[in-house]
C-alpha cells in the first residue's frame, strides 16, 4: 500500500504544479462574482439561478481536471521512459495502476473541496441558510462520479492512441450519458427493432452516471437522502473497480516501449 500511496502522492503533487486547476478556479470564481453583481428587480437574494450556473461550472471544471489528469498519466510515463525505473523498484503493474487512479482521484477530491467550499461561502452569503448535509452530499456524489470517469479514462489511455483522443472520447461519452442515460430505454422503445434493443441493452450495461448529477437537488433545496447516496457510492466504486481491473488487464499485456 505504501508504494501505491507514493505513486498517488506524485500525481497529487503534479496536479498542484500544473496550472489547470488554478485557471479553472479563477475563471469559475470570476464568472460567479460577475453573476452576483447582476441584479434583477432589485432582488439580491434570488440565488438559485446563480447557484445553478456555479454548480455547472464546477462540474465542467471537475470533469476537465479529472479527464485531463487521468488521460496523460500512463502515456506520459511511457513516453518519458520513467515507467522503467518505477516498475524496477519493484512496483507491480497493478500497484502502478492503483496508485495512478488514487492519485488522480484524491487530486480531484482536493480540487472539488476548494471549488465547493467557495460555492458554499457564496451560497451562504446570499441564501442566508446552510444546507450543510445537501452541500456535502452534492460534493461527495460528484467525487464518486469522478471515480468512474477517472478509472474509465485510465483504461482509455491504454486503448486509444493519444491522450487527446482518449480525453475527447471519454468527454463525449460522459456528456452523452449525463444527458441521455436516464432515457436510453425509452429511446430504444420508441425506435424499436434491433437498434432499439441495442439502446435497451446499453441502458442496462452502462454506468448510470446521471444519478450522481444531483445539482438540481442542491440548488432547488430538495433534501438528498444519505442511504441512497451511500448505495450510489457503492455502485460507483464497483464500476470504478471494474474499469481498473480492465486497465490492469490491458496494462499487463502492453509493451512498455513506445
Amino acid at each position, binding site marked *: 500500500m505504501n508504494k501505491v500511496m507514493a505513486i498517488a502522492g506524485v500525481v497529487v503533487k503534479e496536479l498542484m504544479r500544473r496550472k489547470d486547476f488554478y485557471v479553472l478556479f479563477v475563471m469559475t470564481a470570476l464568472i460567479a462574482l460577475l453573476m452576483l453583481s447582476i441584479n434583477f428587480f*432589485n432582488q439580491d437574494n434570488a440565488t438559485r439561478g446563480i447557484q445553478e450556473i456555479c454548480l455547472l461550472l464546477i462540474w465542467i471544471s471537475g470533469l476537465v481536471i479529472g479527464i485531463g489528469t487521468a488521460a496523460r498519466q500512463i502515456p506520459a510515463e511511457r513516453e518519458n521512459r520513467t515507467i522503467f525505473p518505477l516498475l524496477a523498484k519493484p512496483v507491480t503493474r497493478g500497484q502502478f495502476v492503483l496508485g495512478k487512479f488514487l492519485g488522480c482521484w484524491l487530486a480531484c477530491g482536493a480540487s472539488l473541496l476548494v471549488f465547493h467550499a467557495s460555492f458554499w461561502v457564496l451560497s451562504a452569503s446570499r441564501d442566508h441558510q446552510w444546507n450543510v448535509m445537501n452541500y456535502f452530499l452534492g460534493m461527495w456524489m460528484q467525487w464518486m462520479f469522478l471515480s468512474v470517469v477517472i478509472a474509465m479514462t485510465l483504461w482509455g489511455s491504454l486503448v486509444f492512441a493519444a491522450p487527446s483522443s482518449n480525453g475527447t472520447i471519454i468527454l463525449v461519452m460522459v456528456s452523452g450519458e449525463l444527458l441521455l442515460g436516464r432515457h436510453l430505454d425509452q429511446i430504444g422503445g420508441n425506435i424499436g427493432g434491433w437498434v432499439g434493443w441495442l439502446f435497451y441493452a446499453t441502458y442496462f450495461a452502462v454506468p448510470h452516471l446521471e444519478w450522481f448529477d444531483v445539482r438540481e437537488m442542491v440548488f432547488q433545496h*430538495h433534501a438528498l*437522502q444519505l442511504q441512497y447516496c451511500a448505495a450510489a457510492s457503492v455502485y460507483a466504486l464497483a464500476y470504478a473497480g471494474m474499469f481498473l481491473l480492465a486497465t490492469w488487464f490491458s496494462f499487463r499485456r502492453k509493451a512498455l516501449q513506445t
Partner: protein
Amino acid sequence: MSLPRPVILGCLLLAVTFTLATWMNPRCEAVTQHGDGDGLLKTVLGESRRLFANHFFVKADVYFHSGYYPSIFDHAQRERVDAHHMMEDHGGGKEDPDEEEHEKAMSLGKPRNWIDRFGRHFFPSTHSHLDKGDETREILPWLRLSAELDPTQVDTYIVASYWLRRHMGRIAQAEQFLREGLRANPTSHEILYELGSLYYDNRHQPERARNLWEAALRQWRAQDAAGKSPDPVAEDAILANLAKVEEELGEKTKAIEYLKQEVNLSPSPEAVKSHIRDLEQAAKSGAVK
C-alpha cells in the same frame, strides 16, 4: 536586419491601438443603437434570441415547479408551457380538477424499472410549486432575461407582474415592467388589462383602471376585427371588470351595458343575467327615490 528599439516599437503599437480605438468606437456605438434601440443582443443573436427567450421562459416554469419538470422523453403529451398556470394559486390541492389535470399531465408515471426507480432519488421527482413565501423571487430573473431577449413575448410581462404585485408587494416594479412591456407591445390587450388590474387592486384608483380596461377592450376588438382571433376569455374578463368598476363608480347603466355584452361570453351566463336584473332593479328604485 536589426529590430527597432523597444521604445519605438511600444510607441508604434500605442499609435496603432489608439487609431483602432478611434475607428472602432463610432461603429460599436452604431451597433449598440442599431434598430429601434434593440441593441447589441438583437444584432448579435438575430432572430435566434427568441429561441433563447422561450428557453428562459420555460426555465422560469421549471423553477416554479422547484426543478420538477418532465423531459420530452418522460411525457410525449407534456403540457405546453402555460403562462396562466404560473399565475394561479395552488392551495386547492388535489380536489381542484384543474390542478389534478395539471398534476396528471406533469406526472413522470410509474418507474419503468429498478434503475429508473432508484434514479428518481437524485433529481426532483415530485410535483410541487414555488408559490409559497418569498421563494417566488427565484423565477423573476429568468422572466427578466426572457423579456430582454424577446420583448414581444407578452406572457413574460404578465407573469412577472402577477408575482411582483400579488406575492411580493413590489407594485412600482410591476408597473414599471408592465410599462416596458407596453412600450414594446402597444396593442397588447393583455398588458393593458394587467396594468388596469394593478391600478384597481393595488393602487386603488378605479378611474385609471377603467381607462386602461377600456383601452384593453378597444385593442381586443381591433384584433378581433383584424381576424387575429384573440382569446375570448380575455374579453370576458375585461367586460366583467369594467362592469364591476362602473358599478363601483355609480355608473349603473354602463355597468349593465357591459354585463349584457358579457352574457354570451361568460361560462355562467345565469349569474350574469341575475346580476343585470339586480342592477336594473337598483337603478329603477334609485330613479324612483
